């Protein structure tokens, strides 16, 4: 279990360095590593945990804690691994951030910062969209899944509906579908 916890921490640390434009950008890579490479969970379980992570408060990075928690199999060891995974995700990048803010980052000219952000934006957008597609596919792309996902995608694209409300709506639709 200790070896697995250390493995999860190493994965988390590696992922944090790839988080361009935010933690949400690494969701496809979390999927690849947790499901495809290490078999820590099934595709459907990954999608469930991602949904749970979105239903809890906190930064988008919470899926990393649940990755660690699930890899070790919940229970007490899972709690330790979940917390360890999160600290590995935020620790080293925070050190980089402090050093960068203290020195060079503030010296990049504002016009160049604008260009760097413009260059990184399409990467972040592509990674967020990839996450959406991968999670939809991992749910088996059943008619209910496609219907809920497209309806929520459209609603969130054109209105300011609260994300929590949309996720709760999806949960109700899914639960209702099993009753009728």
């Amino acid at each position, binding site marked *: 279990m200790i070896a697995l916890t250390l493995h999860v921490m190493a994965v988390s640390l590696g992922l944090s*360095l790839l988080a361009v434009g935010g933690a949400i950008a690494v969701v496809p890579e979390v999927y690849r590593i947790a499901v495809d490479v290490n078999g820590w969970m099934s595709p459907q379980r990954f999608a469930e945990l991602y949904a749970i992570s979105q239903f809890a408060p906190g930064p988008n990075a919470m899926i990393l804690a649940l990755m660690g928690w699930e890899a070790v199999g919940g229970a007490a060891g899972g709690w330790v691994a979940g917390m360890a995974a999160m600290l590995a995700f935020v620790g080293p990048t925070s050190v980089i951030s402090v050093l960068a803010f203290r020195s060079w980052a503030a010296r990049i000219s504002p016009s160049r910062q604008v260009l760097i952000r413009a*260059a990184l934006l399409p990467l972040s*957008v592509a990674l967020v969209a990839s996450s959406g597609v991968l999670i*939809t596919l991992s749910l088996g792309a059943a008619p209910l899944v496609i219907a809920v996902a497209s309806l929520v995608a459209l609603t969130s694209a054109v209105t300011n509906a609260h994300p929590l409300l949309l996720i709760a709506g999806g949960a109700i639709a899914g639960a209702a579908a099993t009753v009728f």
Partner: protein
Amino acid sequence: MDEVEQAKRLTRLDLFLLFLVISVQSFGGTLPFARRELIERRRILTEGEFAEMLALGQVLPGPNVINMSAAIGDRNAGWPGAAAAVAGMVVVPVLIVMALATAVGTVTGFASVQGGLLGMAAAAAGLLLGTAWRMAKPMRTSWRGIAVFAAVFAAVALLRLPLVLVLACAIPASLALHGVFRRA
């Protein structure tokens, strides 16, 4: 440093509690809550400082608002301050999310709970697609942006290539394409 300046500094405990308050309210993203707490309610940053720090946080690897919280912690109380701020952002939300996953795990035997989880996950996926569309607003008419988007999307979602490989190619290519290396 004069005394007035000293008095305004936040202690480690202040920093931990400040970011704890932000993180536990943050449903569906930390940004709006960080903005409200840091600018409007606590007046720790001005609108301009916030935008500037967030922009730098976005350029650096790691979660944006956590990068920003580390920098604010450091400014007020050095390394221990940075650690306190980051701990405030993550420790309690991690406990909450694991408690939630545990609670959900005890009731997954019911068909309606499984259906609910499926619908919830589908909604979360839809939310990501909607978010991508909104984020893309500044680049929807830029051929450079669309080209980089298409290449990265194909590599990650369709070919399922390792992210490190994709970023090693895409970051330099996109920076060059957007003229970051050109002399000012």
